[in-house]
């Protein structure tokens, strides 16, 4: 297929002949995501080891910050699945985070104390919304997808802000800290910070391994093909729409898990959970860690959360720092920290 260089064509990423060295790097980073499992596995294992000893490095504030980083990591992971594997930039992934947080808060306050019922409600609601919204957003191509997801999250945020029944701009407070019956006879008490931390870490590891597995199947291959050239995939007999939609719903559920847990950590929910700031922070985090790596967003989330906490204790200006990180990574390190690490190790092994 002849590629022309009209602006409209650039909505299919990475397919124009004009490609700078920078974006070639990005391309390499994306392609090698699934191709170097051994290197990535060692990196993942060492990260997991660090995460496992992490709670003993500091006090309870430290642990709770760690939990928060992991929860933000779910949103970043869901951004990464969409952008890194399906080529869809979502600027409204906080919609599912916020929705799940509100459902979780409302059910714990008024309906039930059963974690599993809350989980079920979140799965169903988020599934239904992401199916409907995804069907609309995916039909619109390229940047329109970003704008629709942005607009939809904005609507949800406005609704939460303006509905007095769910607390309006103040949100909801006083959400109880539940005990979760994991197995018959074993109850997990979330009031215990350590238990809380390891619970979230364990679920995140399961999600990570699950997604790695899913993306290594034929589904993942088709998805990558869709990302690289959406126009050509139908000729191979696959309908890109369904693959993107499934990826979208999966990603929404992952962000929703973070939202489900968040009110249990902080004891409150507020309209800003739907907001632009969380959606975009998730994109920064994914970008900093490395798009298309699944692991990068989790690493990036921990780095950014702690960086913000440190910067925040010196100055109020953490938004400026966040913006500056964004600019630097977009312009100079488009494949993120993981890509940087990979380039460094590759160069070393290339020399030896």
């Amino acid at each position, binding site marked *: 297929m002849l590629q022309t260089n009209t602006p409209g064509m650039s909505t299919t990423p990475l397919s124009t002949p004009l490609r700078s060295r920078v974006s070639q790097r990005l391309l390499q980073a994306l392609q090698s995501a699934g191709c170097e499992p051994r290197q990535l596995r060692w990196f993942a294992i060492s990260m997991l080891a660090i995460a496992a000893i992490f709670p003993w490095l500091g006090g309870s504030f430290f642990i709770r910050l760690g939990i928060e980083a992991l929860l933000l990591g779910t949103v970043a992971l869901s951004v990464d699945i969409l952008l890194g594997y399906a080529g869809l930039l979502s600027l409204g992934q906080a919609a599912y985070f916020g929705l799940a947080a509100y459902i979780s808060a409302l059910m714990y306050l008024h309906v039930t104390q059963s974690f599993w019922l809350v989980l079920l409600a979140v799965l169903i609601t988020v599934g239904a919304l992401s199916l409907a919204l995804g069907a*609309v957003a995916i039909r619109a191509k390229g940047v329109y997808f970003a*704008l629709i997801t942005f607009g939809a999250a904005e609507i949800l945020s406005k609704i939460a802000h303006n509905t007095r029944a769910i607390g309006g701009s103040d949100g909801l407070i006083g959400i109880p800290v539940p005990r979760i019956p994991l197995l018959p006879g074993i109850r997990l008490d979330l009031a215990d910070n350590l238990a809380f931390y390891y619970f979230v870490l364990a679920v995140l590891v399961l999600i990570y391994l699950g997604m790695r597995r899913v993306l290594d199947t034929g589904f993942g291959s088709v998805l990558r093909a869709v990302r690289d050239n959406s126009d050509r995939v139908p000729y191979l007999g696959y309908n890109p729409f369904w693959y993107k939609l499934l990826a979208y719903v999966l990603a929404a559920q992952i962000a929703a898990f973070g939202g489900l847990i968040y009110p249990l950590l902080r004891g409150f929910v507020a309209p800003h959970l739907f907001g632009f700031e969380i959606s*975009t922070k998730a994109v920064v985090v994914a970008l900093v860690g490395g798009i298309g790596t699944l692991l990068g967003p989790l690493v990036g989330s921990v780095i950014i959360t702690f960086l913000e906490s440190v910067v925040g204790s010196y100055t109020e200006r953490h938004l400026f720092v966040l913006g500056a990180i964004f600019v630097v990574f977009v*312009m100079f390190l488009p494949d993120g920290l993981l890509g940087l690490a990979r380039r460094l190790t590759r160069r070393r092994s290339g020399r030896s």
Partner: protein
Amino acid sequence: MEDLLSYLHFVVLPQMIDALIIGAALALVALGLTMIFGLLDVINLAHGDLYMLGGYAAFALLGWGAGYWGAIVLVPLLIGLVGWGLEEAGIRPLLPRGDRAIVTLLLTFGVSLMLRDTAQVVWGTETHAVAAPFTGIASVAQVFVPIYRLFVLSISLAVIVATWWLVYRTRIGAVLRATAVDPPMVASFGIPIRWVYSFTFIYGCGLAGLAGVLLSPIYAVFPTMGHDFLVLAFAVVIVGGMGSIIGTIIAALFLAQVQGLASLWIPPVWAETLVYCVMLLVLVLRPSGLFHRIGEA
């Protein structure tokens, strides 16, 4: 019947006039957004913050004694210059990349955060009032409108018409439209594309700055004013068709009426939500907006 007429006259009509004024100012911001997208394929998320900077620049210039008339001339130039800096330093290096629509969107988002925070550092988080040059109220057929708002309306409409004329009736416009369709072809005629892009950026950002000056005496200035306005401007650009001049003008006027009239019957905060719902509906029915992109037909 009598009741209905007076309801239309005294309730609906003033609301429509107000909405017309907001719509015209909204069109200024959205026009810059749509031109930049139409030519460069860049969604400028910092556009709202340039509008905000316009408001603050007006506030600062008035404080230094430049006067309103000084501000209305200087601010668009100043903001155009800021936009030019953004284009030179940030956007230009990213343009050759195949995924430029996405990376420039991310870049301008980062810039937007930095601008907003800078405004908070320099001017604080509180709201600043800006004095209007006129204070009188005009009354036509018993409908009262502040003269300043009529002034905003006439300036906005004049600039909108001038922009339309520039794009569709001048040589510069011909170059702009051609560049939107086929930049290599335009370049092969010996026209420096990078100056076409710079011109578009300066002009578009200048429009946002102008809107900032014009609206600052009406809404006052505060750090998040850009974000709120940007979301609305996006709705306009999406409904009108990204990159369409005519579509953007019509959509701005239309959506402002939707919001204005709806807030007569439902709370204003819900009227805003309604605008986004209209946007989503348009996207469902016609994913590429209601009108053609600049340069196409």
